[in-house]
Structure formats: structure tokens, C-alpha cells
């Protein structure tokens, strides 16, 4: 069978529809006027304005901080969990697998409100002063991001030769030395890919963050949400374009690291 013309057309049209809105969004970030659908000339005004918008910069910084914390914790937790699942047989292993799947299967909004209940009841949402108040949000992100890291690392472990561990032990290495000098170096590509995945998931998250942020703390997606609801200006386009560039760079990195392990 060959690729017939109608199929090619559908593929082309689908790609066009997927990219057209993003292209329009980027194009209007350079609009001279206030409108986001009428072209009024080229300018960098909205980038300048976005760069001087304290709220926007703070939200962007918050998003990056949360993503960084969530990535470090997710990578450590996900890797440790994957190694434990690979190395040991124990009762309740299938229950654990099921629990790891919960953040993947359960609707995000349900997890979001469930976390809201805990955060509000324990006072985690309002008790902490500003920079510390990012920590609970980061922990909420870890909850849905670390299972993804565990899945990526587990996939890499599947092709791992257990005799390397035995050799390491026979040569007198203890638990720690075997872990840090044999296992972790071999898992590095999967850990980097998992970390980048966790970073993107955290940076992208709206729903969980929306429900777990207290008053006075905002992240980039949550700020865009309120901006879209109240006043749409090309400033959002400019900020979005910057975020798209950051995410694309990360996606490219993740792709590069993922490749040798497959």
C-alpha cells in the first residue's frame, strides 16, 4: 500500500490545525497594538512589558523553583522506588504498582481537590510565609511526577544484567558502593530523561497547582488562567512564547537523553 493523496491531505491538515493556533499566538506576541487578533505592526513592546511585570516575573520564578524542587525529589524517589521494585520480591508489590498508577489514571481534578483538603486541614496552604509556601506545592507535584520517573527508570532496569550487581558484591563492594558506583552510573540516562519529564510535567501543571496554591502564591499557568479570564493582552502571548521556547529546549534535551536507552 502506498500513502494515498487523501491520507496525505488529512495528515497535512491535522498538522496545520495543531500548529496554527500556536503560530498565531507567537505572531501576535510581536503585535504593536493591544489586540490579539488584529495585526497592528511589529514591535517587541510586549516582551519589554512582560519583563517589567513584577507579577509575571514572580510567577515565572515560582514555576521554575517549584519545578526544580519537584524534579530533584521526584528523581530520587522515582529511582529508589524503581530499584526497589526491580530488586526485591515482597508482598503487596502489585498493590504498590496500583498506587503508582493512581496519579496517572485518576482525573487530575480529583487528586487536586483531595490535596486541597489535606493542605487546608493541616494549614499547609496558609501557614507558611512566601518562599516556603512553594514547598507544599512542589510536594504535590512530586506526587504525580515521581511515578513517571519510576516508570522510565524501571524500563531501563528491565534490560539490566543482575550479574553486574553480584560481581560488585563478590569484589567486596557494600550496598552503598554497589548503588553509587555500579547501578546509578548505568541508570544515568534514564534518570536524566525522567528528571526532564518531571520538570516538564511540573512546569506544565495547572490543575493540581490551581487547587493547592494559597492566596498570594501564584505560578505561571495559574497567572495565565487569571489573565485570560480578566484581560487578554499580547503580554500573555509574549510570556507564553518564552515558556514555549523553554519547554521545547527541555523536550529536545529529554529526547536526546532518552534515545540511547531505547
Amino acid at each position, binding site marked *: 500500500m502506498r500513502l494515498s493523496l487523501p*491520507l496525505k491531505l*488529512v*495528515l497535512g491538515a*491535522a*498538522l496545520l*490545525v*495543531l*500548529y496554527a*493556533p*500556536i503560530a*498565531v*499566538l507567537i505572531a*501576535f506576541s510581536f503585535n504593536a497594538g493591544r489586540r*490579539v*487578533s488584529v495585526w497592528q505592526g511589529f514591535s517587541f513592546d510586549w516582551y519589554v512589558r512582560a519583563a517589567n511585570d513584577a507579577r509575571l516575573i514572580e510567577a515565572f520564578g515560582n514555576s521554575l523553583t517549584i519545578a526544580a524542587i519537584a524534579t530533584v525529589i521526584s528523581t530520587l*524517589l*522515582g529511582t*529508589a*522506588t524503581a530499584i*526497589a521494585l526491580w*530488586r*526485591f*520480591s*515482597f508482598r503487596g508489590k502489585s498493590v*504498590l504498582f496500583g498506587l503508582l498508577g*493512581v*496519579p496517572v*489514571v*485518576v*482525573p487530575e*481534578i*480529583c*487528586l487536586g*481537590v*483531595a*490535596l*486541597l*483538603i*489535606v493542605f487546608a486541614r493541616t494549614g499547609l496552604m496558609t501557614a507558611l510565609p512566601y518562599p516556603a509556601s512553594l514547598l507544599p506545592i512542589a*510536594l*504535590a507535584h*512530586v*506526587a504525580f511526577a*515521581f511515578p513517571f520517573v519510576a516508570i522510565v527508570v524501571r524500563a531501563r532496569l528491565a534490560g539490566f544484567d543482575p550479574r553486574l*550487581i553480584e560481581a560488585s558484591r563478590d569484589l567486596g563492594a557494600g550496598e552503598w558502593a554497589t548503588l553509587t558506583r555500579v547501578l546509578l552510573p548505568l541508570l544515568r540516562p534514564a534518570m536524566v530523561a525522567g528528571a526532564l519529564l518531571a520538570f516538564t510535567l511540573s512546569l*506544565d501543571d*495547572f490543575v493540581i497547582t490551581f*487547587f493547592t496554591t494559597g492566596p498570594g502564591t501564584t505560578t505561571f*499557568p495559574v497567572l*495565565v*488562567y487569571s489573565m*485570560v*479570564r480578566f484581560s*487578554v493582552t499580547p503580554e*500573555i502571548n509574549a510570556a*507564553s512564547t518564552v515558556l*514555549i521556547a523553554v*519547554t*521545547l529546549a527541555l523536550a529536545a534535551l529529554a*529526547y536526546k537523553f532518552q534515545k540511547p536507552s531505547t
Partner: protein
Amino acid sequence: MNENWRKHRGAFASLLGPGLAMLAFAIVVPMALMLALSFSEQRGLTQVAFTGTLASYARALEPLYLGVVAQSVWISLATTIATLAIAYPVALAIALAPPKRRDLLLLLVVLPFWTNLLVRTYALIIVLSPTGLLYTPVAVVLSLVYVSLPFAVLPLYAQLERLDRRLLEASRDLGASAWTTFRRVMLPLTAPGLAAAAVLVFVPTLGSFLQSDLLGGAGTQMIGNVIERQFKSANDWPFGSALSFLLVYATAGVVALASLARAKRR
């Protein structure tokens, strides 16, 4: 490896403990609290009493909320059908493309998924605003199809790429028309991929609230919007929790049905 954990208690505990603690703190405890709340009564602004009442679940059966459920299901079904109708030919086109080009085409389909969901939704608002479709259920379905497409293309591509093309050729050689070949050979053979794609689109769509919130206008409400309101403005946490659990059950039901159908097929 299948080591006995009793022989390496220290390593076992330090490897598994942190992950378990995280799951307990962020999944088990919150879900359990939400379950308890769904059987509780709201008394005053912040006071909630656990009474084992089913009132919140009964309230979900009121005509107003049944209407919201019906609209959510209707929007999710329309989204699923439209997404599959687009994703199938797209996945087929990629599967039939020269092997060298397939990876690039797949990447092109998946790449928008890496852009922030809010950014993509906002981009759609810009594009849809001159059409007059904004703030209608149609805009909600369109935006949901837009964000769901990569989820449908991937499983369909995986299935179509493995499809034995000789079966299609045999069907054509035996005199079947292209349509009959599609309907009687290709469709049954790719049914598992279609089912997987349908679940991957339907489940997140049923639980979505952002698209109906930003593009739906006053007339379009999904379950997610009602849940959000109970926690953010209406302040009826027991009712919000009950709705949330009903959504979890619906999701689990769809996933279970799909895996049952898969098991039957084998």
C-alpha cells in the same frame, strides 16, 4: 532480580520507604479524607461533621446535576468520536510513510503536547474568537479534540504499524472494495488500538474542567466545573468530595470495562 527483602532489610527500607511515605502523604491520606468528607455534613462555613450521611450523593442525583453529568458525557463522547475520526487517518498516514520520516512525523504530532496546556487553550481562544464559536459547547469540544489528538494518535500508530499489510492486499485481491477491506479487515484488526485510544481520550476529557471553564461560557458546564465551584466558591466540600468520588468511580469503570473487553478478545 528477585531478592528476599528480609535478607536486606536496611536497603529495602531505605529504597522503598521514601516512595511509600510520599504515596501515603499525597495519595492515600488525601483520598481517604475526601472519602470521609463525602459522607459528612457541612455545618457552617468551615465546620464539617462526619455523620455517614448519603445526602451529598443524593444531591448529585438532582435534575440540575444530572443535566451536568449528561452534558459532560455528551461532550466527552463527541470529543472521543471526533478525535478518533481524525487520529485514525493521521496514524495510518504516519504508519504508511517511509520509515525514515515516521519518527519525525510522530514527533510533530506529539510536540504540541509539550507546550503548556494553558498556553494551548489560550491560543485556541485567540483563533476561535473571530469565528463566533467561542463560549459554546462546540468550542469546548474543539479544544478538547485539540488537546487529546496526540493521546489518540500514539496507540493507533502502534497498532497500525504492526498491521500485516498482506492481509489488506489479500482482501483486495479477493475482490473486496477498499471500503469493505477497511470495515471487515482493517477495523477489526485495529480494534484494540482504537479501544485504547478511546479510553485515553474519554477518561481525561470526562474529568476536564479548564476547557469548559474558559471556552464554554455560561451554558456549558461539566462535572469538573461543579466540583471546582464546591471547593473554590460555593464552599460545600462534602458535595464536592462526593462528586469527585463519583468521577473517580466513572473513570475506574471505563478503564475496567476496556480491560475486560481486551481480556475477552484474547
